[in-house]
């Protein structure tokens, strides 16, 4: 054991860095009221960008994947054209509205053919062929191609907007958080697992779940706690938290405790796929990751408000994404991104990482529908946030401020 293995327990004082957030209890109305959710749809969700995949999913011209955005009930088709550009379209046939491409992913020979009546579109979305065209009454093919979806790429992630005329550019939306975390080797983790589940809770509760670690010693006593809370951090404090506009980052203090037997096998034989890995490539992390440059850092939660966060270590990352579908209903999607395994032994490390993350998330999510019932029934009307639950207090303030601003906009329009 060297000196670094005995770090000081993090102190109280994160909230004091951001006096505008206040310190009092907060009203829980934004977590359940239908009229607030309806306003969030206009003021927040229709003004945001959504990550739907990565460029590595479509390496070659003709490669495609489809995506469904539950919040907006929109189908999207993403493909790479012959010039190598990535294009995103509404996956809706302009004839009668069926999806043009029904498969989740694949390779197109250059035409997407709707399986309803056989209208075909090329990789740039042009309507190339109408079956039995002479039976129509003068359709202008040039005006009936697939409608494009506003799309942008950041660090290999493909982001789209649900509206034709985005409120902000993708770059503006990602802001300082995007700039400060660019340069992490996002694209090295080419392999990913993805799973989803529907949860009867408000979207903010899903975001809250990984956004504080105050709960770790209690909710995760045998899983995450022994590795995350070693060396006396028994209260589950963060190393640091930083707010960047609507976005925020939590840095996690951690010293490896004694791993469990199967973990030990994975860490030793397949370290690259583990969230405790120290990167062997020796690259410098971008300034937005482990911003405090602490030697006791292991993991950051990089949150892009409103719906996606990355739990990220030096060697791998997971993406937590929530799709709001009602005031008390959400779709959660998790992707676990790991580096490619070369050998069969390394493959074991990938599986171990995925199973651990999945089960820890199942522990986290035990609370969500229970809390939502207490909210919906009026059994809890205030939340009390600990100093190290700063991220939740920040999210509450961001939502409240955006809704107030939206009300002013509406009043101004009416005046």
């Amino acid at each position, binding site marked *: 054991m060297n000196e670094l293995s005995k770090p000081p327990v993090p102190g109280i004082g994160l909230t004091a860095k951001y006096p505008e957030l206040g310190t009092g209890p907060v009203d829980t109305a934004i977590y359940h009221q239908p009229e607030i959710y309806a306003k969030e749809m206009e003021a927040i969700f229709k003004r945001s960008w959504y990550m739907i995949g990565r460029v590595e999913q479509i390496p070659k011209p003709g490669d495609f994947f489809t995506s469904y955005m539950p919040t907006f009930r929109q189908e999207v088709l993403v493909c790479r054209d012959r010039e190598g550009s990535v294009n995103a379209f509404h996956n809706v046939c302009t004839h009668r509205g069926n999806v043009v491409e029904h498969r989740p992913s694949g390779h197109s020979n250059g035409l997407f053919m709707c399986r309803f009546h056989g209208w075909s579109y090329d990789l740039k979305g042009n309507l190339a062929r109408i079956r039995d065209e002479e039976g129509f009454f003068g359709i202008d093919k040039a005006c009936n191609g697939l409608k494009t979806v506003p799309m942008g790429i950041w660090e290999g992630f493909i982001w789209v907007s649900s509206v034709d005329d985005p409120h902000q550019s993708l770059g503006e939306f990602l802001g300082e958080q995007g700039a400060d975390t660019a340069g992490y080797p996002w694209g090295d983790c080419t392999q990913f697992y993805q799973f989803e589940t529907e949860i009867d809770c408000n979207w903010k509760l899903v975001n809250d779940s990984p956004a504080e670690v105050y709960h770790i010693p209690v909710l995760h006593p045998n899983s995450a706690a022994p590795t995350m809370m070693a060396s006396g951090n028994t209260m589950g404090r963060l190393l640091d938290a930083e707010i960047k506009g609507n976005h925020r980052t939590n840095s996690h203090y951690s010293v490896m405790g004694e791993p469990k*037997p199967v973990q030990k096998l994975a860490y030793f034989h397949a370290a690259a796929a583990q969230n405790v890995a120290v990167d062997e490539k020796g690259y410098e992390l971008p300034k937005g990751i482990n911003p405090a440059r602490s030697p006791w850092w292991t993991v950051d939660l990089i949150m892009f408000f409103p719906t996606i966060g990355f739990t990220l270590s030096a060697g791998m990352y997971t993406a937590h994404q929530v799709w709001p579908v009602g005031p008390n209903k959400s779709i959660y999607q998790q992707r676990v991104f790991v580096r490619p395994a*070369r050998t069969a032994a390394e493959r*074991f490390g990938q*599986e171990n990482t995925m199973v651990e993350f999945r089960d820890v998330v199942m522990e986290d999510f035990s609370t969500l529908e229970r809390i939502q019932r207490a909210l919906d029934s009026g059994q809890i009307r205030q939340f009390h946030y600990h100093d190290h639950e700063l991220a939740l207090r920040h999210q509450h303030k961001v939502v409240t401020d955006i809704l107030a601003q939206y009300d002013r906009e509406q009043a101004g329009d009416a005046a």
Partner: protein
Amino acid sequence: MSGVLPPGFAVAEPFVADWVLPDAAARMAKRQSSRIEDLRRFYGVMLPLGEAALAHLRDFELGSVPEDSERLLKLMLALAEVAPAVEWYNDPRVYDGFPVERIRYLRQIPDTAAQA
């Protein structure tokens, strides 16, 4: 002539029929539908083989894993699935957890294919 498992791993052969499964979703379902006593028995046999198994599997590149070693890899992947049940929960299910049967895998990493 290759055996069911590579030489030295015969003690795990009784588990091949039940625990060599097509993918992660099938392994998750198998864990959930098993009794903890059966998970402990599988874990108890596989864990002591773990070091030797991974040392063996280190010599095989994904995409060209012989059948007997592929079965051994799949048993090790099942060990990864079973480990939390035995080490964390003493129960097939996540203790007091969100019901894992409510999740759907949308994408998995293939067990044995070469990875780019």
